[in-house]
């Protein structure tokens, strides 16, 4: 067993407080999902139709992909608040490059650029020992400004209609974007569960000092998680262009907020050391169902905002309650 695995498998003795709060060990995403499905099924005849479920899956993709990308990073004890701005940047870059170099090279170049930007975030955090919240928040502002500067202020139509067609293509009731989402989720889940990188990610998030002392290359693994987060933001930019057929420099605003909420609601601790991709997906799905269900039931828009705000607070409370638990890997 690797040093990281030993560390992640060890658990501190549970504190009395943690023992009393044993019920919060389970991610609330699963019971929330079940409750919401039952509630909205009973509340609206359109909810459980194939058309609406297909729509729900599709609406989950953007935040879901970002949440999948953020999960390993948050498990390792960091965060990336620039993913929304990076998705907007990526969308504009793809459209910008389509004409001169072609669709496929534009996509690959953009994904590589987003990977590099994520890596850059990681370098600043790791090498300068800065807080990832501040660094990535600053990067978010800078990226937004850079996007306006480089690509202008107007929305640009995607030149290649085939890309838009692909984005709106369905395999039966399931969109291509949904398929991509689940493939990516499976890959990242396997990365966390079945690779040395994944095991070390948990170890680093659980106890960074202990991981360092055990000989884990902490910086390398954190950098890779930042890079992965950046690449997933690039993928979201691609999906935006494929679905909407256009790119605007304002795409992706507040996406990072909901992605982080999904990760935390899914059972991943903001402090690191615990969590998983499946929880993030279920939470992202739950958030989408909540909004979709309220739309179908014609809940007044002001109440929708209030309810979504309550969900944000609930996610933070849940994370706080879990902060007293012993650190174990899933």
């Amino acid at each position, binding site marked *: 067993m690797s040093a990281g695995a030993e560390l992640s498998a060890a658990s501190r003795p549970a504190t009395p407080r943690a023992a009393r709060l044993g019920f919060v060990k389970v991610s609330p995403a699963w019971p929330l999902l079940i409750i919401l499905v039952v509630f909205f099924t009973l509340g609206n005849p359109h909810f459980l139709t194939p058309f609406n479920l297909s729509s729900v899956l599709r609406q989950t993709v953007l935040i879901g992909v970002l949440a999948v990308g953020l999960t390993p990073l948050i498990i390792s004890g960091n965060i990336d608040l620039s993913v929304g701005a990076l998705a907007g940047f990526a969308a504009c870059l793809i459209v910008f490059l389509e004409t001169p170099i072609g669709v496929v090279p534009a996509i690959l170049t953009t994904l590589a650029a987003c990977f590099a930007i994520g890596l850059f975030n990681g370098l600043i955090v790791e090498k300068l020992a800065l807080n990832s919240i501040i660094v990535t928040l600053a990067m978010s502002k800078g990226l937004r400004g850079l996007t306006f500067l480089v690509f202008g202020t107007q929305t640009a139509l995607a030149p290649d209609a085939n890309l838009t067609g692909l984005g709106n293509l369905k395999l039966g009731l399931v969109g291509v974007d949904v398929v991509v989402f689940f493939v990516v989720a499976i890959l990242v889940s396997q990365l966390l569960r079945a690779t040395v990188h994944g095991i070390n990610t948990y170890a680093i998030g659980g106890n960074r000092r202990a991981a360092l002392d055990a000989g884990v290359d902490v910086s390398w693994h954190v950098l890779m998680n930042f890079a992965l987060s950046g690449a997933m933001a690039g993928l979201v930019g691609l999906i935006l262009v494929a679905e909407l057929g256009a790119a605007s420099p304002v795409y992706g605003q507040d996406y990072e907020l909901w992605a982080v909420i999904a990760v935390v609601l899914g059972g991943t601790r903001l402090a690191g050391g615990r969590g998983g991709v499946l929880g993030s997906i279920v939470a992202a799905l739950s958030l989408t169902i909540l909004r979709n269900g309220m739309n179908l039931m014609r809940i007044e*828009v002001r109440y929708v905002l209030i309810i979504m705000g309550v969900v944000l607070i609930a996610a933070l409370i849940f994370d706080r309650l879990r902060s007293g638990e012993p650190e174990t890997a899933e």
Partner: protein
Amino acid sequence: MRIANVIAATWMAAGLTLGAAYAADAPDWLGGAPKKPLDQLHMGFSFQGGVGGNIYVVQYVDKLKALCKQYGIDLTILDAENDPAKQSQQMPDLISQQPDVIVVWAANGKAIVPAIKQVHDAGIPVVTFNAQIDKSGQDDIVAHAGPNDYKQGVQAAETLIQALGGKGNIVEIRGTVGFGPGDQRAQAFLDTAKKYPDMKLLDVQAGNWSQGQGQSIMENFITRFGKQIDGVLSSDGYSGTGAYLAVKAAVAAGQIEAKHIKFVDPNIVATNYDLIKAGEYTAAVLQTPQDDAEFSFRVAVKVAEGVQVPKDNFLPTPMLTIDNVGNYPRPGF
């Protein structure tokens, strides 16, 4: 045969009576007998967002709800929270309810096109409100209703340029980038200014329809350009009011000459209505959310009822100056 004739006559009489009843209940502005009673209509409304912070949008939505309630029309409202992707992905939520008409106030006129095509393909008529969509989506809508942002932009630009005698330096505080009205008003100024070679645009920044941002931007303009500024063209009354306050402070500090700078915007609000009355603000175009909502509502109902309407339906928007501002009520926003 005789019984069949009686039955047919009875049905015809019932139909005529019902039609007469529908016509009697139909408002005059509908322009004809509705094919369906208004209180059986269902309208789906997807709007760009802003209930959380844009007073114009809040009052617009409230007026629309009030009108639907008045006529007994079932209304589903979806708020896209200024996210073009969210608005696009919400469209199936409306389609699944099979409303008689879907009205769309687009968060992004280009990005919404595939979603509007989806609605069109589902056989539901689409009317766009307020913000116009890209020409690539025009074939999929039945009509557009709302203010003519480009024309209002031209009105405001011409008024400001004339107030400056056709020459001078202008700074512009434009609306949200990528959002139809903001883009169209900004483009209108650029196009209008080309006719006046002695007009110079010193700078343009996005105030995002915010008084606070308008004030901050104007303070920065004053710092950079000082007494060079002759006029301020704002995207709306909020940022225009912010600009005025910044200038007022600069006048008090001796940085700017009093009464020198002219202010014009294409969308009046309560504060600059008061300033126009006081002679402190040059002019603004009258466009209230209530008028906007009611005008567009009528077009949408006509479309739902199968009444022919023009493709483009623009809200009349007079220019208010000190000479005529007293003829119009103070806006409630």
